[in-house]
């Protein structure tokens, strides 16, 4: 059997050695590998042979909407961090710096798509119309989830890194089967027209740290083998708590897709227009049945990993300053103002809306009810379970004993 029997890849892997070198040197600076960028840090709009077409679909309303979303979620992040500092939340996972990666990708999804987030995807949650106060339930300690994913097709946060990636691929395999079942049902009914249901895709988020987890590898193998309609969206925010990306990978993460046989694209994760364009391209491709894509959004976690973290122990503040100059909000504001697409009144309104959201979230968090442990008994299994029933009965009796005591004390 000759080499011609080996599966071929449509992606050229030459130049890897050069890139290895370049990437190692580029850890703290600009990426040496080409990445898709449309809106430069100075707010000027460039062009791209493939993705400009997608950017041109965006009208002024959409662009203003991107800015409003990014500003809103940043304000939310500030409020949640404050709530943690005031002891109202056990922990908070800030997203500041990653607004463009999250809003750009989330806004490229459609309602019928299904999203599997990490625990930092508050911006994506916003684009999926998740009630942001519900996001805080988990961090308040009143739920391990907090919202019903069926309402918004936005799955629960998964805390075991990368464990959600095979779920996404399996879900995408289900979409493939739905389409086949619908086609055979239509054929049985004598209907040969196009399917009534819109085609759907899945998008799954993970980070540069989680990219080292075996589940990411296994997911990409499955996705490639079955050509599943799934977009792997990796936010390379440069730090896995205290460990830099160079420890996770010696090549740009997007390049790993080549090894699985599907496209990998690095995009400027602080450029909301480019992120949106690339994600829209990838999701459309997946919905058409052309298989998975890996997107690496090159961005930066400006704040701490969580409110329990202290970045001064492992990185220089100059690095943070370097990235603040690439701020995703500032560049879009510069562009909107320069193009005359938004004025002071708009930005004032955005600020007011953010404050309103913050006030809502603060009030709702304070009002979140502590659940009864009986709900945990009820939700362990779907069907009746004798051990759960026995332990619940014991708990009721035990609790009732305290009630009698309290009654006795009152008398």
């Amino acid at each position, binding site marked *: 059997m000759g080499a011609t029997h080996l599966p071929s890849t449509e992606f050229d892997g030459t130049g890897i050695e050069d890139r290895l070198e370049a990437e190692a040197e580029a850890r703290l600076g600009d990426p040496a590998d080409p990445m898709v960028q449309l809106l430069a840090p100075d707010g000027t709009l460039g062009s791209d042979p493939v993705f400009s077409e997608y950017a041109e679909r965006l009208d002024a309303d959409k662009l203003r909407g991107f800015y409003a979303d990014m500003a809103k979620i940043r304000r939310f992040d500030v409020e949640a961090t404050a709530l943690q500092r005031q002891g109202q939340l056990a922990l908070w996972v800030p997203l500041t710096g990653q607004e463009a990666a999250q809003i750009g990708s989330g806004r490229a999804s459609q309602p019928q798509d299904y999203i599997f987030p990490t625990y930092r995807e508050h911006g994506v949650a916003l684009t999926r119309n998740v009630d942001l106060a519900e996001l805080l339930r988990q961090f308040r300690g009143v739920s391990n989830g907090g919202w019903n994913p069926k309402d918004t097709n936005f799955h629960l946060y998964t805390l075991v890194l990368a464990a959600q990636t095979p779920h996404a*691929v399996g879900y995408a395999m289900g979409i493939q089967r739905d389409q086949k079942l619908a086609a055979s049902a239509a054929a049985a009914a004598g209907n040969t027209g196009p399917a009534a249901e819109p085609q759907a895709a899945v998008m799954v988020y993970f980070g540069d740290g989680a990219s080292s987890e075996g589940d990411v590898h296994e997911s990409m193998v499955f996705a490639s083998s079955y050509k599943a309609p799934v977009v792997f969206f990796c936010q390379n925010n440069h730090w896995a708590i205290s460990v830099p990306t160079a420890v996770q990978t010696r090549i740009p993460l997007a390049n790993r897709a080549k090894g699985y046989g599907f496209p990998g694209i690095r995009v400027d994760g602080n450029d909301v227009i480019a992120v949106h364009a690339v994600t829209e391209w990838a999701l459309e491709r997946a919905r058409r049945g052309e298989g998975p894509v890996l997107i690496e959004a090159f961005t930066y976690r400006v704040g701490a990993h969580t409110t329990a973290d202290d970045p001064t122990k492992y990185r220089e503040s100059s690095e943070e300053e370097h990235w603040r100059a690439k701020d995703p909000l500032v560049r879009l504001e510069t562009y909107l103002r320069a193009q005359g697409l938004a004025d002071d009144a708009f930005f004032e309104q955005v600020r007011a809306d953010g404050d309103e959201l913050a006030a809502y979230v603060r009030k709702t968090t304070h009002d979140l009810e502590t659940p009864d442990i009986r709900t945990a008994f009820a939700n362990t299994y779907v069907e009746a379970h004798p051990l759960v029933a026995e332990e619940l009965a014991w708990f009721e009796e035990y609790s009732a004993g305290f009630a009698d005591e309290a009654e006795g004390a009152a008398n």
Partner: protein
Amino acid sequence: MTTMTIAKAINEGLRATLANNPRSLLMGEDIGPLGGVYRVTDGLFAEFGADRVVDTPLAESGIIGTAIGLSLRGYLPICEIQFDGFVFPGFNQITTQLAKMHSRSNGNLTVPVVIRIPYGGGIGSIEHHSESPEALFAHTAGLRIITPSNPHDAYWMIQQAVECQDPVIVFEPKRRYWLKGDVDTAAPGPSADPFKAHVLREGTDATVVVYGPLVPVALAAANAAAEDGHSVEVIDLRSISPIDFDTVTESVTKTGRLVVAHEAPTFGGIGGEIAARISERAFHSLEAPVIRVGGFHMPYPVAKVEEDYLPDIDRILEALDRAFSY
């Protein structure tokens, strides 16, 4: 009634499931054209095609993880793990995701995944092919664990596992795959509830609780004990999570003595849980401490010495003798 082996009964149960439910599918390594290393899925690929009988990449976490995703989309995946000792790459997905998804979602999501695992020793195989890891899963809330010991149960249990809305692990006693028995494919009869223990042999002097591969061993031990004048009741537990403590308690209340036997190591095993519960529930009926028979606290030994490790008729009789000595 049809006579068939346990392997064939599972095969027929899977065939019935695939035929009756278009959203069910099988996933695993080598389960397609080969029919699985034990041929349990023999012929199903040809009958139902590659979308329903899915030869997966060789990745256990990927199998369980994608099965979870499929179930979230409304499918009923039935995963085959090739051998007991190979489940551990998928352990994270089973214990942190599959078991907890319903609870995590406050009851909004269900993940009715079925995982089939051939388990147990006595087949003269190499490392990782003879283990009994059921206690590791029984300790995890959110999972249900059942194990058939005969073809009739095997035929119905696999279908009941698919019908259950909770995730179910079916531990299949691999050294009994070729054990033959009568199967009523028309109705489950007394096997209608997969989580209920069965009294296989009635007795008055002692109770032996077993499950899966040790059921024939316990029945043989009870026969031998009868020759010595001891009337031994034998219970096939059938379900390891939940455990039907009512049936065991009722039996021990009658016999006053209990021996629990399994291939898995006794330390931290299912036998210990049964001993503790029964000592609470039937303390005043017990004439002797509950005695456990099981594997030693060591990695499953090499095939040439596994006979010294595995509970057999004599080990159960020795335990009964100890119980009778009180």
